[in-house]
């Protein structure tokens, strides 16, 4: 019946598609943004345990450990190996004078644990040479815009000139700054003088030991905080969720999409029902049961819901496909969980939109068809 009224049919589909797009798009951006907060953690694949000061809340705010801590961690039963990791910020300057703040990662001189696995150009081993660095793609495109990837170029960090020996594909950081990777000993020389420079210790549990158990042993044995990389990533994400206005802002948008979608769809659906009361009354008079009419209404609601949902998801997918090559939008993508969650929200919209109409039809006296 609904397809017979093209204006309302299209209006319903547009309302649901718009809501779907807004919800799936905003939740995708939010999840991508939150995932970015843990990008430096996610890029460490070789170590499973992160050790840090006991009061550390998230990855971007650290109190340095001592070298002694590193040795104590190595002595804990179940630790196969433990290496230092420096994480800080610095300022890089190109040959043309262009400069930008960078995230500086200092990797263990020997193992280079913490370097992203995806290397676009160059050789990770060359990082062991003095005055060398690996730069992520965002940094390369900032300092050398429009130029093909090439090794041997230099950047100045704290008046030291470092040669680019590798270009890596790192996860997009929350603040979207370039990421520079260099040896640990090199990194601590590049930043200001502090008595201690050891941001984190990355460790790996020995064969036969469970990561969580080893983390607990490290914590008990050293008084430091030791958690798995996954747990630390979630701690960081929750820190940003609990301490910033980001979830509220995105949440408001999603709620508005839900409310506007429900109101517009509900009103349109109700108008359609009211305008077709005679037809519904005729069906009831003819002998079509209430249950069958309810199924008709719900089926129509589900069809417009499915079409609107499909269009909305397609719009969101098109957005992320169109921006896939934009480095500033790295890490933003629509997850299957978001599609499922949005489908649930659309189902709720459709259910609420049709509920009032269903009630109106159920209480309808079939004798209405004989009234003028």
């Amino acid at each position, binding site marked *: 019946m*609904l397809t017979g009224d093209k204006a309302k049919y299209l209006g319903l589909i547009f309302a649901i598609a718009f809501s779907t797009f807004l919800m799936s798009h905003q939740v995708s951006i939010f999840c991508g943004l939150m995932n970015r907060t843990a990008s430096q953690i996610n890029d460490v694949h070789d170590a499973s345990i992160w050790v840090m000061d006991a009061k550390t809340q998230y990855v971007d705010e650290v109190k340095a450990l001592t070298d002694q801590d590193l040795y104590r961690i190595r002595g804990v039963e179940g630790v196969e190996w433990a290496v230092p990791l420096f994480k800080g910020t610095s300022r890089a300057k190109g040959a043309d004078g262009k400069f930008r703040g960078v995230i500086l990662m200092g990797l263990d001189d020997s193992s280079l644990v913490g370097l992203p696995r995806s290397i676009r150009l160059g050789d990770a081993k060359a990082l062991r040479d003095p005055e060398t660095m690996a730069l992520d793609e965002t940094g390369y495109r900032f300092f050398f815009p429009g130029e093909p990837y090439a090794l041997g170029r230099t950047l100045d960090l704290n008046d030291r000139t470092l040669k680019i020996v590798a270009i890596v594909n790192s996860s997009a950081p929350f603040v979207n700054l370039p990421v520079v990777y260099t040896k640990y000993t090199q990194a601590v020389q590049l930043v200001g003088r502090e008595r201690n420079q050891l941001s984190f210790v990355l460790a790996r549990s020995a064969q036969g030991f469970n990561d969580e158990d080893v983390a607990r042993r490290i914590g008990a044995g050293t008084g430091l905080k030791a958690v798995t990389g996954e747990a630390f990533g979630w701690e960081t994400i929750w820190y940003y969720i609990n301490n910033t206005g980001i979830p509220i802002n995105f949440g408001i948008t999603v709620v508005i999409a839900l409310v506007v979608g429900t109101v517009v769809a509900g009103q349109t659906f109700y108008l359609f029902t009211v305008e077709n009361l*005679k*037809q519904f009354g005729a*069906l009831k008079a*003819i*002998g*079509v049961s209430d249950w069958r009419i309810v199924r008709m209404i719900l089926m129509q609601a589900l069809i417009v819901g499915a079409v609107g949902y499909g269009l909305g998801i397609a719009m969101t997918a098109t957005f992320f496909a169109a921006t896939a090559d934009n480095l500033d939008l790295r890490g933003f993508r629509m997850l299957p969980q978001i599609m499922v969650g949005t489908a649930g929200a659309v189902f709720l919209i459709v259910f609420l939109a049709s509920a009032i109409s269903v009630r109106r039809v159920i209480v309808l*006296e079939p004798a209405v*068809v*004989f009234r003028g």
Partner: protein
Amino acid sequence: MKVLRGVDFNVPVGEMTFLVGPSGCGKTTLLSVIAGLLNPSSGSLAVLGTEMAEVKGARAVEFRRKNLGFVFQQFNLLPALTAAENAAVPLLAAGWKRKTAVEKGAALLDELGLGHRAKALPNTLSGGQQQRVAFARALIHEPKLIVCDEPTSALDAETGHYVMELLRKIAVRPERAVLVVTHDNRIFPFADRIAHMNDGLVERVESSTGGTH
């Protein structure tokens, strides 16, 4: 408020009975009661030998589905369904397979001279054509009682005359009663019997053979 009072009235099978009277006299209410769409507050009503007071809820729906055919003033066709699908609605409601039901709907439309428009949507049909689709919907399940509410009021005189001829030809059967509510005196000659109502009462019933009671 009592709309009907002292109604004593029979609709015989094999005839077309008209229920006529001024606006507000209770014709539509009486039609609704006879069709089982409203329950009388007192008195008794038997339709096709069944006491309607005993038929309620789902049983009333089933009774209407099996035994009654409806023709409405404004046709009330479903706008998204084709003419054949609209005609097939009572069969679909009875659980027939869609294909079989629609084929039967198309065949009946053919009998009504509308076979070539079986796949047309209602909004592309003229008033007379829509009424013929409504006739097909009322007849397709071969009901024993057909109730028609002002079947010609939305049609011009010529078309109204034509559809009443058609209705008489295809609807009146020895085993079936046809009840038409109308105030269109141009179609009175099609009636076998005319019940005149006024102020909630059936004042008199005229037969086409000349009898009055």
